[in-house]
């Protein structure tokens, strides 16, 4: 089973001086039960400052619950979450003011107009940048006087983004922000988010189902399966680590394939597909031992890599080892 990477030695050169940088998010064995079900299971996660971190997983994997625990909305049953150096459920108002959150489905007071929603939220924040709000509103050409329930899902998402960036947060946490949006709006939303927040070296954490979006914007990914963080690695590293080997055999395999690093396999007649993590000589030897009449080694995009990695048997899921994930 893969373990998450907790980089205890995160340091950074700043202004010519060595200073210790506290990661914006650190969780330690974070666990949550709903009823008898363990929805988040011993999550150890460290997200570095300035990164765009995507939390991925299938429905019910524990992504939203993790994000809610980071925001202090849900209490962990075991373990801890530290956000900007403070315990997530006991953050001071000063710390909370440096965090913005965009929730799944964009929960806003829908009877308010856009202007009304801005007027409502503004007094709660010690720092509020009208110019940033204007930038988003103007960019998306949002109708200020219209009530939120009369806006499309995409426009509501844009209002959420405008409200979230207004405080110029150090940390932006988004829970599946693009769900229900069409491709164009989704792309525009994410690009705007990156432009406004990440250009300033801020940290963004978001959960998503839409892997093409993640591939475009996230520099790190975490993959959760049944509440367990199976992968915590740079996006590119994960994508490049998985290879699909397609072989033609003379007949069906007598027994299921077994090989270290085998993430998943699928047989259709004489055609066998094997997906390996960090395909190397050992794997090539194993493939050769099957005496294939032909073989192709295919690279995968992030979506395919995610699907292939997560559809394998959980019990034998190959580790995304620490040293690999650290790259």
């Amino acid at each position, binding site marked *: 089973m893969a373990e998450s990477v907790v980089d205890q030695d995160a340091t950074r050169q700043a202004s010519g001086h060595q200073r210790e940088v506290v990661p914006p998010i650190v969780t330690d064995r974070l666990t949550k039960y709903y009823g008898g079900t363990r929805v988040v299971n011993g999550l150890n996660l460290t997200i570095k400052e300035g990164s765009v971190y995507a939390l991925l997983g299938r429905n019910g994997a524990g992504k939203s619950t993790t994000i809610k625990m980071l925001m202090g909305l849900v209490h962990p049953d075991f373990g801890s979450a530290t956000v900007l150096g403070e315990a997530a459920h006991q953050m001071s108002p000063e710390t909370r003011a440096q965090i913005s959150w965009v929730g799944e489905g964009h929960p806003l007071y829908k009877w308010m107009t856009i202007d009304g929603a801005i007027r*409502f939220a503004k007094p709660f924040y010690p720092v509020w940048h009208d110019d940033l709000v204007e930038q988003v509103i103007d960019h998306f050409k949002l109708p200020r006087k219209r009530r939120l329930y009369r806006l499309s899902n995409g426009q509501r998402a844009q209002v959420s983004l405008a409200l979230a960036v207004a405080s110029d947060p150090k940390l932006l946490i988004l829970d599946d922000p693009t769900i229900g949006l069409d491709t164009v709006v989704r792309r525009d939303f994410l690009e705007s988010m990156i432009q406004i927040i990440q250009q300033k070296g801020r940290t963004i954490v978001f959960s998503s189902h839409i892997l093409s979006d993640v591939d475009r914007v996230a520099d790190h990914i975490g993959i959760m399966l049944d509440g367990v963080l199976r992968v915590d690695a740079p996006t590119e590293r994960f994508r490049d680590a998985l290879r699909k080997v397609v072989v033609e055999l003379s007949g069906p395999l007598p027994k299921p394939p077994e090989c270290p690093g085998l993430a998943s396999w699928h047989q259709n007649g004489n055609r066998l597909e094997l997906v390996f993590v960090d395909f190397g000589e050992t794997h090539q030897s194993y493939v050769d031992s099957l005496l294939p009449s032909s073989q192709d080694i295919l690279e995968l995009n992030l979506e395919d890599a995610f699907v292939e990695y997560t559809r394998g048997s959980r019990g034998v899921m190959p580790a995304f080892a620490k040293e690999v994930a650290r790259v």
Partner: protein
Amino acid sequence: MFNAMLRKESIVVAGPLLAAVAALSAMVIDAVYESRRHPAPQGDWMLDESLVYSFLIASVLLAMTISVLQCVTEEAQGTWRYAHSFPGGWRQILKLKLACGAVTWVVWSSVAISICLLGIGLDRGSEGEPLGKLFDPMLRTLVCVPIVYFGGYLTALRPARWYATRLLPLLGVIPCWFLVLYLPNWWIVAPLVTVAFSAMLIGVIFHIAETRDFA
């Protein structure tokens, strides 16, 4: 910040508040109209006990409705999480919402008593002390209403099944409220009991908000 929350909450509670004011006004107008059609005999007073009980019931129902609405609308819209993501967190939001409830209570008390005073002014009865007769039960009610309000709030905030244990706080405060209402020397005892019960209920509300999940 308080003004922003007050504006928002006033939209949530405006409906029940206006309905209660309209109902009370209708009852007073009806009583005055009846009084003019059938002048009361010497010594009688037209704004009788039925008006007082209507006021009492309207106040209690209003307190329950407002407290439950203040929580349930957030729950239904999924906006607890949004509101709690503000820098002040749940503590600030809860304090502001309870303060808005208090403002609503003051508004209701002022408007309701004004309506009743207007009714008394328009009455042709010859009761010697209508204000005394009217004000005693009304003030008792208004003093006791916070208990019902906080009980309703606790009921709506608690994560439990509506048809099971969730209604317990509300059911629990009603006997307290009746107890206070019919106490002898109520003007001494009722405020003390109300303050003590309200403080306890506020404590429990904050405890529940701190320990529950806003999933």
